[in-house]
């Protein structure tokens, strides 16, 4: 079953990384269940990018009460998957808008302030980049530095399920 899923995901990768254009990929039909088999939790808290912050200033962003209260709980967020450094990944960045730059590959491109790092228990191949995806998982807050890449994150979701919308 796992192998079957893997080959399905690999074919998805070929589509996503290869020649697909915005118009020709029948994404509505694609429903991606990654191989961690947890179904989406019933009582996931719905969270939007607009609801994450209570305020911003030059001296930093303040987390909203909704975000703080959801720490450690299951949340569901929709956004866009930024193209990762490699097709097979342990984490990716969820953004409000599709990324028009590639901070992983360009030294003078940087991430927007409001990003969520989605951590995966097993590597997963890429989902589409130009259409929204939904992520469900456990919310984590606080500074963490990825040991392999040095990537600093503040808001993370330990993903239980991913879905192309």
């Amino acid at each position: 079953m796992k192998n079957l899923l893997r080959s399905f995901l690999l074919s998805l990768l070929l589509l996503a990384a290869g020649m697909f254009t915005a118009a020709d990929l029948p994404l509505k039909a694609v429903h991606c269940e990654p191989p961690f088999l947890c179904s989406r939790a019933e009582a996931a808290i719905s969270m939007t990018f607009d609801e994450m912050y209570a305020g911003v200033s030059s001296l930093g962003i303040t987390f909203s009460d909704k975000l703080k209260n959801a720490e450690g709980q299951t949340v569901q967020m929709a956004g866009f998957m930024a193209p990762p450094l490699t097709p097979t990944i342990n984490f990716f960045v969820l953004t409000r808008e599709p990324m028009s730059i590639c901070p992983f590959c360009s030294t003078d491109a940087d991430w927007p302030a409001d990003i969520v790092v989605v951590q995966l228990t097993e590597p997963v191949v890429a989902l589409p980049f130009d259409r929204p995806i939904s992520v469900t998982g456990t919310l984590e807050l606080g500074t963490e530095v990825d040991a392999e890449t040095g990537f600093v994150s503040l808001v993370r979701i330990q993903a239980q399920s991913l879905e192309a919308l």
Partner: protein
Amino acid sequence: MKFISKQRKTAAAICAFLSIFGCAAAGNLYLPAHVEAAGYTVQEKNPVNLMPINRAKFLKGQRFDLQVEVKGVANNFKVTVDGVDAEKYFGKTGTVKTADGVTVYCISDVAFTKAGDVKVEAVADGKKNVANYTVTDAKAKKKAKNVILFVGDGMSLQAREMARILSKGLSDGKYNDLLNMEKMDHMAVITTSGYDSLVTDSANSASAYATGHKSVNNAMGVYANSTKDPFDDPKVENIIELVKRTKGMATGIVSTSNITDATPAAMLSHTRRRAEQNFIAETMTEDYHRPDVIMGGGSRHFIPMDTPGSKRKDNVNVVEKFQDLGYTFSGNRTELLNTPADEDKILGLYQLDNMNVYIDRAMLKNPKVLGGFNDQPGLVEMTERAIDTLSKNENGFFLMVEGACVDKQLHVMDWQRAAYDNIELDQAVGVAQKFAAENGNDTLIIVVADHAHGASITGTYHELDGKTGREAVRTYAAAGWPTFEDRDGDGYPDNPDPDVTLAVHFANHPDTNIDYKFKQVPTAPAIMAGDKAIANPNLKGEFAPGNIPYKESQEVHSADDVLLNAMGPGSEYFNGVMDNTEVFFGMVRALGIDGTKNAK
């Protein structure tokens, strides 16, 4: 002799070519008898990498590092200056370092103390490289007390023309007025290449303005060696360091971008890698190049890592460091306006990232676009405050003001947002002109772009007769005139989206969709899908296949020459076609800087 015979060979080849194609008479157009053609060949890379490079020009006394690099391991470096051993000549001992497959010999922090020609020879592993330098101590007859350098990032001639059309309009075929920057006494055409490539980025070009030396893409204040360390490259002293050291002048940098971004950063810092913005923020606190006024965006590089919104990778609080050094911090426009008038040191950071552009910040004010930064000052206000503050120093001041988003908006093919920010830059130029006129005309004002973009005005665009897309692009006589209006006389068109707008085409772009209309919300032309950029599905319009590599998701810089305008003492230096490094020499000549003063 060899040179001449080569030239003859070339001439013969051209003649043969022309004869074959039956247009031999045209040969005279190529090689008229009375002209000595210079001739040139493709430059080959010398295995001995000598930095500063051949043809470098120095201000007398300007500090620099001399480096010689060869591949592999080596320890038998012999370097002479005008025939004298370099260590003896400079009175300093060199060091040797092997890293990343190369060996680098370095004599740090030296200077030429006499004007004239200098010849440096470097021998390593039996191979030789020779560099001929020029050292100048030229000083203007009538000197400037202050210099204000305006950099319109990416402000090509065409970008300026878009700003002029929108801001001033035309009647009877003539412009109703010119931009402030176009009303200056002196003008030059500036060539923009670095020493690595025909096409420059903003770090490399700003570095030429700040140091008078060529550099390479992504680098500032350094020549580039081959080691991976972005901080060990040979440095050259920059304008802020020079005016502080030799004259005790006040200095300032103002920009609408991250203040650690390439152009403002190059005025004071030294790194091979412009992306080291956290380092750049921190190095701004060091006395020898610490500006008295720092205003712009990009607080994310100044606040500690644990604070949400930070991009630092440590918990250094650079804002607090500046406050400890006596700086007054302002985080928004209100705080800037409330900063006491007698403060002589200001750190103003008004956005976590780049500041929002004029259209979004001052006109549309869409909360989603501003993302909570609803109270940002404009470039004109920042320029006014910077001049007020810096002009208190009796020794004069150097101020760099950058209109950064002309470039950033042309990259995303949003010429309307670029044009409004270009107008804003021009109004900031007006502030400087007013200051100069009211204070004895002893300020040199320079306005220059750092590189161009391939945006060009084809005609106009409208859909009034039902045509859309390319059929609605109006060319030649059908173009007529756009219907922008500035009824309130603030210099900005009242509506960025009139019935008849400009038809602007870009010479290079990624896959994108084009509808020629103003975008109410900033929208990128393409998005990244894996390693390829594809047309942004959120953009309406006709699909325009890209003509640059697929990895490029934005329109890219062009190698086109740019314009420089100047007024005030020393501005007479600028005329004709000039290399970008000459902007530096024009500034230090105007100030009459003696680079040997207060040497360590």
